[in-house]
């Protein structure tokens, strides 16, 4: 099977092309450095199947960054049948610098001029035939986003992959050419593959080559002594880089005709940037954008229309009889409106739960209850299996609506701007703006976010970022946030769901900032590396790729609900219905179960956080939720639902008025509130604890792999436990006794003073 690889500058659309060719849904984002390792897929439209490998974005084949080493090693060692060099056609001059290096390798090369639609829209023109003639390799115009030219690209790549190609250099300076030629002959004599490429790199004093060919290096050094350039002296890498750029400017740029040749022309991107990256308004605009996302997703009072116009409820309109909807139409209407207009996210979630999940699961549960099965089997299926799964599924629309908006922001190029705006602020805390990008990815899933920290140059900055990524609440934590927030709003009638959720997210971000500040001034002290990143142009997100991304997210969430969550729910139900003598317990006896005893054992530890011993008989469910959440965070609410369903079946609690259904996560939390009398501050502390404590097992495994060092990893686990404990205690105590705010402020000031004193002492000792 033939193997083609995709190589090009960061953010030139390699992964979009990879997805287009292979039908994959790999993560794409409109900023440089989304892909940090190679990805593989298959193209099946030719006579034979082609393996496509997507390499990380690189600016050169010199080993300046780990991504460049990965890409270089792949092209040299794996010997692909063809290198597809993707070029951002809107920025052809800089992209061709890498091309000049790839052309030096003995491999068939084809150039894909991507974003050709944007070039044509600007009125510019690229003469690809002329470029083809000058470079000596095929050039094809494509638009990976719009699926234009991909088949032609693959067809031509397939044709040239059958013919052997010998590397060529564009360096024309006679003396350097002579030097390279001599080194090349020496390497050929040693049987080295790709002699031209290695010879040039050796002349450049390339770190890898110097180690690979120490004997040849002596010969090169000898020649260099007699050769000295007037401008660059002995800086051969600069000399060769200059020769490449000169070639590109002199020979290749003439193939592009700009409608407006002014290099600093004001594009629509720069006009938008004047506002969005404004040094004063940039951050407030970002906060407004972020709040709008949460408002669109969670608000039950969209655009505050209900409050502004004092709108009547469905009951006021006489559409309810004895608390029941008059007909299906009213039920449908209640998903969108009830005294206020629901936000799109809320309306979709209501529709999903009332019409789909509620009806389907309710119907199945009714059938099970009506069957002749023994009561334990009915309990296992209805409470253990169906309630556990449906409580997690009930949050699917919210998750999708939230991620749709984040995905649009990522694809548009706005997130990369935010990294720049935040760089100045982040620098004060000891991080560069680059660290913001993996953090933002953490809102989706901690795993790719942790992997993306590889793009950070400094090891200590990398460790600090990995440690705080779980504080950026991921999709799996969303059910915890929304179920508890929803229960607070419906049960206590306090606040707005969107405001509370947004505040919790912000608290996570603030915890991350404070933690970084603390780490970077103590154990992970170090210089903050400079932040240099190419600002991507604004692009309109493509409907197809966004929908594919969402579909992938939904598929993953559903499959997780029916595997790990389902298995965990079965275990939770079983352990909550058996005692240590393996005797089956009915719903009245679950306080004597194995799970209850296990939870109660750890309850005192959580008393300062508000959800420990003070919660009495059923408080152990909160502790069990934390433990099951370590497998997958969705398990927290699935556990509440599995046990909550049993509680609803118990006598002595008045649930009817609240219209509680255990299959709805909010209902399950409401049931727990009623039986434990847990307070609002304790519930908020519970959210914060789950948000900031040890993440799920998959994220922990990724962090372990990325951190490498065992000691650093174990310190990271301790760090997560301590931070979550302190912040949750803070939330609970301040929420319960407002005056403790002053005590916490005093503690924070004391810590800051100690840090200043500690740092000064270190400087004096070093001085």
């Amino acid at each position: 099977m033939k193997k083609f690889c995709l190589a090009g500058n960061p953010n030139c659309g390699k992964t979009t092309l990879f997805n287009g060719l292979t039908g994959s849904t790999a993560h794409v984002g409109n900023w440089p450095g989304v892909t940090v390792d190679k990805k593989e897929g298959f193209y099946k439209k030719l006579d034979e199947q082609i393996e496509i490998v997507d390499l990380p974005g690189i600016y050169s084949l010199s080993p300046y960054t780990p991504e460049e080493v990965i890409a270089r090693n792949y092209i040299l060692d794996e010997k692909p049948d063809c290198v597809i060099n993707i070029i951002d056609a809107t920025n052809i001059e800089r992209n061709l610098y890498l091309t000049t290096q790839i052309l030096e390798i003995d491999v068939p090369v084809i150039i894909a001029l991507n974003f050709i639609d944007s070039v044509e829209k600007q009125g510019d023109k690229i003469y690809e035939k002329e470029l083809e003639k000058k470079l000596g390799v095929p050039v094809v115009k494509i638009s990976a986003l719009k699926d234009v030219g991909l088949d032609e690209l693959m067809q031509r790549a397939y044709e040239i992959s059958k013919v052997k190609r010998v590397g060529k250099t564009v360096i024309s300076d006679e003396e350097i050419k002579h030097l390279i030629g001599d080194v090349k002959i020496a390497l050929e004599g040693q049987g080295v593959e790709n002699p031209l490429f290695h010879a040039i790199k050796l002349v450049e004093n390339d770190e890898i080559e110097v180690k690979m060919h120490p004997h040849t290096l002596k010969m090169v050094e000898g020649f260099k002594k007699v050769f000295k350039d007037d401008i660059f002296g002995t800086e051969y890498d600069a000399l060769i880089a200059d020769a490449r750029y000169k070639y590109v400017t002199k020979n290749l740029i003439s193939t592009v005709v700009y409608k407006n040749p002014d290099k600093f022309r004001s594009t629509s991107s720069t006009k938008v940037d004047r506002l969005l990256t404004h040094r004063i308004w940039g951050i407030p605009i970002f906060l407004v954008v972020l709040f709008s996302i949460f408002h669109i997703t969670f608000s039950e009072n969209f655009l505050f229309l209900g409050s502004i116009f004092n709108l009547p409820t469905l009951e006021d309109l006489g559409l309810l009889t004895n608390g029941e909807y008059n007909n299906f139409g009213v039920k449908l209407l209640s998903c969108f409106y009830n005294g206020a207009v629901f936000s799109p996210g809320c309306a979709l979630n209501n529709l999903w739960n009332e019409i789909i999940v509620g009806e389907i699961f309710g119907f199945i549960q009714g059938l099970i209850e009506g069957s002749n099965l023994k009561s334990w089997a009915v309990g296992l299926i209805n409470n253990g299996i169906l309630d556990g799964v449906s409580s997690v599924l009930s949050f699917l629309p919210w998750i999708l609506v939230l991620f749709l908006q984040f995905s649009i922001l990522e694809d548009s190029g706005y997130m990369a701007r935010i990294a720049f705006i935040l760089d100045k602020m982040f620098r004060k805390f000891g991080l560069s703006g680059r660290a913001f990008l993996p953090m933002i990815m953490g809102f989706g899933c901690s795993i790719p976010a942790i992997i993306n920290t590889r793009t950070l140059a400094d090891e200590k900055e990398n460790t600090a970022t990995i440690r705080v990524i779980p504080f950026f609440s991921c999709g799996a934590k969303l059910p915890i946030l929304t179920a508890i927030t929803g229960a607070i709003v419906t049960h206590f009638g306090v606040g707005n769901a969107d405001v509370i959720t947004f505040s919790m997210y912000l608290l996570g971000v603030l915890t991350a900032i404070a933690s970084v500040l603390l780490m970077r001034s103590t154990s992970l002290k170090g210089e903050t590396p400079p932040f240099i990143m190419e600002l991507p142009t604004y692009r309109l997100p493509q409907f197809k790729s966004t929908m594919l991304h969402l579909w992938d997210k939904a598929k993953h969430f559903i499959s997780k609900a029916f595997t790990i969550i389902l298995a965990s729910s079965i275990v939770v139900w079983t352990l909550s219905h058996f005692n240590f003598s393996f005797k089956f317990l009915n719903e009245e006896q679950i306080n004597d179960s194995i799970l209850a005893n296990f939870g109660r054992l750890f309850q005192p530890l959580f008393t300062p956080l508000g959800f420990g011993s003070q919660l009495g008989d059923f408080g152990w469910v909160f502790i069990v939720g934390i433990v099951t959440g370590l497998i997958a965070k969705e398990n927290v609410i699935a556990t509440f639902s599995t046990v909550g369903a049993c509680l609803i079946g118990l006598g002595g609690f008045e649930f009817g008025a609240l219209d509680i259904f255990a299959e709805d996560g909010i209902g399950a939390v409401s049931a727990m509130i009623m039986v434990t009398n847990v307070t609002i501050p304790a519930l908020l502390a519970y959210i914060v604890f789950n948000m900031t404590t040890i993440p799920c097992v998959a994220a922990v495994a990724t962090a372990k792999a990325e951190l490498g060092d065992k000691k650093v990893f174990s310190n990271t686990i301790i760090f997560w436990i301590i931070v979550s404990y302190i912040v949750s205690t803070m939330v609970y105590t301040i929420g319960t006794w407002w005056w403790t705010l002053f005590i916490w402020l005093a503690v924070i000031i004391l810590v800051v003073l100690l840090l200043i004193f500690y740092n000064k002492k270190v400087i004096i000792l070093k001085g």
Partner: protein
Amino acid sequence: MIEIFIGIGCFAFVVIVTVISIIKRKKGKCCNGDCSNCSSCNLKK
């Protein structure tokens, strides 16, 4: 009889999910994370 079948089925399901998760992890294929993003994950190597 059917209750025994349900019990055994649930037990088998839990065992299978656990074993598959462990095998996938040992093989280096990440199953718990976001798979679309994890195609570049080093757990897959």
